[in-house]
């Protein structure tokens, strides 16, 4: 799957978990750009993504991403 398509699905998950239909994600988006994305909702987002794609991130991976793009890259690698 293309990263763009993945980004779109990740965006859906963000909208659902954060209860905000207006969220628009870019590869460069960080927690500072998205309202409601904090350390607590972060893990909820991760778990929701894991469930949706039926994959599991390692703790190290979760701590390593600097923006949404890196998250999606990591996801794409797992799905490849």
């Amino acid at each position, binding site marked *: 799957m293309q990263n763009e398509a993945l980004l779109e699905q990740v965006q859906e998950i963000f909208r*659902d978990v954060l*209860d905000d239909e207006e969220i628009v994600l870019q590869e460069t988006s960080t927690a500072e750009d998205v309202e409601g994305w904090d350390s607590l909702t972060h*893990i909820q987002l*991760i*778990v929701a993504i894991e469930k949706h794609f039926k994959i599991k991130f390692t*703790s190290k991976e*979760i701590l390593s991403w600097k923006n949404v793009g890196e998250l999606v890259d990591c996801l794409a690698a797992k799905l490849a």
Partner: protein
Amino acid sequence: MRSFQELKRLAKRACGEYPQARMALLGDSATQLLATALKGEGMARGLALDLFEAEYNQVERQVLDPTSELYGFDADFTVIYQSSHKLLEKFSLADAGTRASLAEERLDFVRTLCRSLKGRIIYYNYPEIGDGVFGSYQNKVESSFIYQVRKLNLGLMDLSREYPNLFICDLSELQAKLGRDFCFDSSVYVSTEMLLSLDALPYVASRTLDIVCAIRGSFKKCLILDLDNTLWGGVVGDDGWENIQVGHGLGIGKAFSEFQQWIKKLKERGIILCICSKNDEDKAREPFEKNPEMVLRLDDFAVFVANWDNKADNIRTIKEILNIGYDSMVFLDDNPFERNIVRENIPDICVPELPEDPGDYLEYLYGLNLFETASYSSADKDRTAQYQAEARRVSSARAFTDEKAFLKSLGMVSEVSGFNGFNIPRVAQLSQRSNQFNLRTVRYTEDQVRALGADSRHQCFAFTLADRFGDNGLICVVILEKQDAGTLFIDTWLMSCRVLKRGMENFTLNTLAGFARENGFKRIVGEYIPTAKNGMVADHYLRLGFTPVPDAPGRLFVLDVDAFSPLDCYIETKQTPYAE
């Protein structure tokens, strides 16, 4: 089970008119999401939790410092989550010599907790983490972690028996059911310090609120059961009582036997059992009467409804008989169609979505924790028996169109006695408590009752009432004052409202008149003193054939003993001398 996401949305909702409860949450790990889950689960049950969340890892400080925010908050419920994970860390850091006293040390702290906190404490017990250091040999080693955890959990049970304000939330059992890998998510822990997975949170919140609701008086009292393919395999109307699947023969029978064993345990705990089945009644009863493999018997059920009517209507009938709320009832039926009809018509009743395979019924129901309770005593069993007796009486009355025939069928027996060492406490209790069926509402203490019983100027009567459904015990008291050679004055006539409409009043008067006649009295005088609560007996003496005394109409009434002929009644006297 609701997802955490759903609970989160519920937690944000305005609580409107919901009743409130104050809850404090203290943990040795991150508890913010648990707090959200608890709030959401509260909302789902119509309870608005005013939640105080202590800061991270402040259990000891909050409890041991009497000036802490915890004491300022004054919670109705204090939830304490000290985790196995942190306990293991503590254990690992301790020197080998002190590991064997870990459980004792923690129990000491819980004891302090129980002594210090007002309100109820809900303490999460410790799910097991096998650290693999000793293998199964850990069972022989007091200083192994598992040894300490199990000792701790047992110690918590003992403490909760000792301290009525301590309630254990059985996280250990929950993890045994859900699995450790489901309950703990290492990446969630590493990135948030949270020890419960997002998927486990709703279960933990639900088990916590089960306890809160039970303490607040909301719990299940009654289990209504379908028969065919629910209590046994097969259809009794087609297969016959001897061919239904139950018992430890071949096939699926043992699943139903074990299911019945579980239901029997619930009954023994005080849950009222009822049947609601689409069947001919005689066919439906046959397995209980004739099939030796059946664990449940007819006398386990308070109400047995088997007919071809709509099940929602039948459950309404059951509700009327038992006089309890729909929200305290559980309905189990294998048929999704019947379940939906009941759910749609009676929204408050709990209708679990039974799995298709009867072999799965029990594990599924175990997981729902439907029968949480906040109290248990061996007397619960007896109370149920009384409930059942009343239910059987009412349901039996329905079968009679003629009230007299019904009363006759009850086979009522009353024991009539004077006051004696055995019944004086109960007489005094009735005298203190009876408000409605009480003609003069004169209250007597135990000592006064004893004195009246021994006084030759008074004649005292205590009546019991039993019937084929059960014994109501002592339910009626009369004290006669011998005013002069010809006159008896009814100083006291009171009766428990449990036995209204059984003809007990007639029986009582027949007994009094019999005594008067045998002892040469000509008149019995009764007095009605109105109170705010005894309106139901304003016409009591008129109904029984007394004549108003002209000087005091509505208040004093007189009965001519010689002209009296015994009133209709269907109560037999169990003979015991009523003289002193």
